């Protein structure tokens, strides 16, 4: 199994401990990814919803994109590409449960980045996707 870069994982772990009493919000995760993205790259200049949208829809030279299961409209209900099981919307505006739990955010980015890209996602990529999802349905 591939492992995430140590820093983002440690940051998520620390975050989930310190903030475990209260439910996290998508904005909390954005801040967390920002901190990690600055550590990844000194020249980090902020997230981009446009870049996130392109990332979300790209198959990255492989079989699946994020949209394969979540559809190209993340405010809509998706379907698992293999099992066909319905997937509740990913955009926070359409589904208030999204990006409210550190353990789930960590688990699904880990699994799905591996399935789509064959590697872990960088904090930059996760942040781009998050701000794209946060920009939808408003």
């Amino acid at each position, binding site marked *: *199994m591939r492992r995430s870069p140590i820093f983002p994982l440690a940051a998520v772990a620390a975050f989930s401990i310190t903030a475990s009493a209260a439910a996290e919000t998508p904005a909390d995760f954005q801040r967390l990814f920002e901190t990690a993205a600055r550590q990844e790259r000194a020249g980090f200049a902020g997230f981009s919803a446009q870049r996130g949208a392109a990332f979300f829809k790209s198959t990255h030279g492989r079989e699946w994109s994020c949209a394969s299961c979540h559809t190209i409209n993340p405010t809509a209900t998706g379907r*698992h590409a*293999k*099992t*066909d*099981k319905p997937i509740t919307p990913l955009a926070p505006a359409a589904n208030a449960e999204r990006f409210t739990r550190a*353990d789930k955010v960590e*688990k699904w980015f*880990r*699994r*799905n980045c*591996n*399935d789509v890209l064959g590697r872990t996602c960088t904090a930059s990529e996760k942040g781009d996707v998050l701000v794209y999802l946060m920009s939808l349905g408003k």
Partner: protein
Amino acid sequence: MKHVIRFGILVLLTVGTTGVVLAGDHRYPAPNPTVKAECGSCHIAYPPQLLPAHSWRALMAGLDKHFGTDASLDPQTAATITAFLEQNAGRKRSLSASSELRISETRWFVHEHDEVPAYVWKSPKVKSPSNCTACHSNAEHGDFSERSVRIPR
């Protein structure tokens, strides 16, 4: 009806030898909440009675490559689920799975579904034999009884 008779024969053959049979009416108890949440997020939480313990152990040891997707779990959650699967695993010889560990490839599954015509399996609404709910309308609740079967059109 056929299944009732089949179950009767099954009971006669197996009670007193193993003492364990599959639920004759094809109803299975609800899984514990962790199993339902974790196994049930991409597919239904399949009844643990449908594979033997050694198959579940092998499956849980390879979650990062789970039938073509990464279904990896944190070690604590994985241990909880493995224990539940082992405790409730099936014991019939016909459940022995192929090396791929698919319930749908066990002799038991193939036999139970031998009346299903090929066009049903090919239907885009079924998509895969792993998609129990396509026909077993109440499978989410462990109910695989013939009464609840609805073949999609």
